[in-house]
């Protein structure tokens, strides 16, 4: 199976610059349904499902490969290769903001810019660093993963598609969510919430926009500020929004922030 099928890659829009959107934990590329189309006029837009999520090929989920986010970062680069993309902008949400960062560190010349929506380099409080979670919190969170699998996997599906008029599509999507292997979800949660990529932040050479919600318990402001301080060529933009998914809950503000950032860069 080639990578485009394996990661359920969708290419739309048109433009010399490719904008690739990487979704966060617990969902799939449908999370970009409100934001990505806004860029389709100027950019070639690419959405995909992380290996192990959504409608990707679950059998391709190799625990050793995806035990670190570098595995997903390689996938992003491979997808760009496969579609023969030119210069690219990577937009990553939550855990995928770090996936995008790793990809941009690996091949800096490939990327014109990176947009990090609600990123966190480390979720765990560590001395003066305030990641937002204690060790006990993370343990409890991972435990919740165990007990709320159905909630995680299926609650989002029908509505995310916004498809009351296309029940078959919603059902298909629900089924694909339900097919998500709970063991993969747990493994991915562990990899996500126990990751610590603070040490790689200074190596970033690609202009970065850190898009932060004003009230986000998953990636608190302290995290955004820390990342902005540590990453060269980064900007921090705070959107007045409660939550962790501004691309869904505040798509216009998110679009404006990203668009003006890219225009400032001349992209």
């Amino acid at each position, binding site marked *: 199976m080639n990578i485009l099928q394996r990661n359920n890659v969708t290419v739309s829009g048109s433009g010399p610059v490719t904008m690739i959107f990487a979704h966060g934990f617990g*969902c799939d590329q449908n999370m970009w349904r409100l934001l990505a189309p806004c860029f389709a006029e100027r950019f070639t837009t690419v959405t995909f499902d992380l290996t192990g999520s959504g409608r990707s090929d679950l059998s391709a989920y190799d625990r050793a490969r995806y035990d670190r986010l570098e595995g997903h970062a390689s996938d992003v680069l491979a997808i760009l290769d496969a579609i023969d993309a030119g210069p690219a902008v990577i937009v990553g949400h939550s855990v995928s903001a770090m996936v995008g960062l790793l990809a941009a560190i690996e091949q800096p010349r490939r990327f014109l810019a990176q947009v990090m929506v609600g990123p966190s380099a480390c979720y765990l409080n560590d001395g003066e660093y305030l990641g937002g*979670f204690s060790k006990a919190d993370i343990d*409890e969170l991972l435990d919740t993963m165990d007990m709320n699998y159905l*909630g995680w996997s299926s*609650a989002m599906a029908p509505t*995310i598609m916004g498809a009351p008029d296309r029940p078959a599509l919603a059902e298909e999507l629900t089924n694909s969510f339900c097919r998500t292997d709970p063991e993969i979800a747990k493994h991915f949660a562990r990899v996500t919430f126990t990751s610590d990529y603070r040490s790689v932040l200074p190596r970033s050479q690609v202009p970065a926009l850190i898009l932060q919600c004003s009230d986000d318990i*998953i990636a608190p402001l302290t995290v955004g500020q820390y990342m902005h301080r540590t990453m060269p060529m980064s900007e921090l933009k705070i959107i007045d929004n*409660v939550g962790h*998914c501004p691309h869904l*809950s505040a798509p216009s503000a998110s679009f404006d922030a990203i668009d003006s950032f890219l225009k400032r860069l001349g992209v």
Partner: protein
Amino acid sequence: MGPPADQSWQWEAPCGMLITDARGKVLRANATLSRWLGYAESEMAQFQLAQLLTVGGRLFHQTHLAPLLQMQGSVAEVQLQLRHRDGQALPVLAAIERGADAEGNRVDHHAFMVAADRRKYEQELLGARQRAEAALEERRAALESLRQKELELRKANEQLKLIDLRKDEFLAVLAHELRNPLTPMRSGLDLLAMRNNQDPVVQRVLGVFDRQVALMSRLVEDLMDVSRIGKGKLQLKREPVLVSMLVRHAVELATPLFSKASQTLHVAAGADCTLDGDPVRLTQMLVNLLNNASKYTHAGGSAWIRFERQENEAVITIRDTGIGLEPERLSEVFTLFSQVDSATERAQGGIGIGLGLVKGIVELHGGAVSAHSAGLGHGSEFVVRLPVAATPPGALTPAERSTQSAG
């Protein structure tokens, strides 16, 4: 804080109820929810919703519920965990609806039901799914392994067929090549015989050569015939032929062998009938069976050849008092080269072609041959069944006419 009079029923409801503003600040909580979480109703207004959730609950609320509410205005039947004042987690099912208060400000109405069994239910559901998937996987693996085995078997069969084909080709070439030197040898022997040399030594050597060349020629001919049958190239020259005639000719040809071994060959004639067959090949087939009977019977023993008609079949039986056959050998004696593995039998001058040729010729005539024996030392019996020719009544032989009138 107190509920409006017209909503008092809600505040006594058997479910937890909560109203928050757009930023998640608790505006009201009913008595039931306050009691579940260990707070007085008046205390609840100091909290943000996030503070009443566990960490996992907060994460789920932010990554899933909040976007859902944003997009569709309500969510239902979602599992969350609330946090009791003492730190204990309270699993609940939540239904949330987005609305507006009297001033038009956005508010979220939450209803919670305790759902302690949900985890068990989920675990059971997941367990069942995993078991079903494991069973499916096992089945898939078994099918795949079966498919692989079939594939291997098919390959092995094809290889065997190829080997068989090459063997047949080799034997055909070998037989052909062996026949070439035999012809001048036979001519040379005939020339020497005509010289009328009276030297007893020469006479004896010539006799030996004569017999051995004859034996070799027969083996080579048999080998060629077997090869022709295998390739479907043995052409029958069919004509109406009486069974009695076939038997008579075969007996004539085999008699010297029996005489030499001081064996007695008995012929028992039953009802005669006509076959549509190649007399030369059918005779060859019977001679082979008779030779076989003589070869495996001790000196002074006996053999019988009997023919009769049974309905639409001519049945020819050749029986002997020879060494007999082990029961497990009965089914394989007609297999080509089946004797090659037995040194004793090879010593008898056979390479396992004779009976294979018999079977080939009989089957070419649409018949069947079978072997019977009561075991080693009890003699053998070979039964050949051949279809009777569909001869029109006017063409019946005298023998057949007499059989019919007798019937």
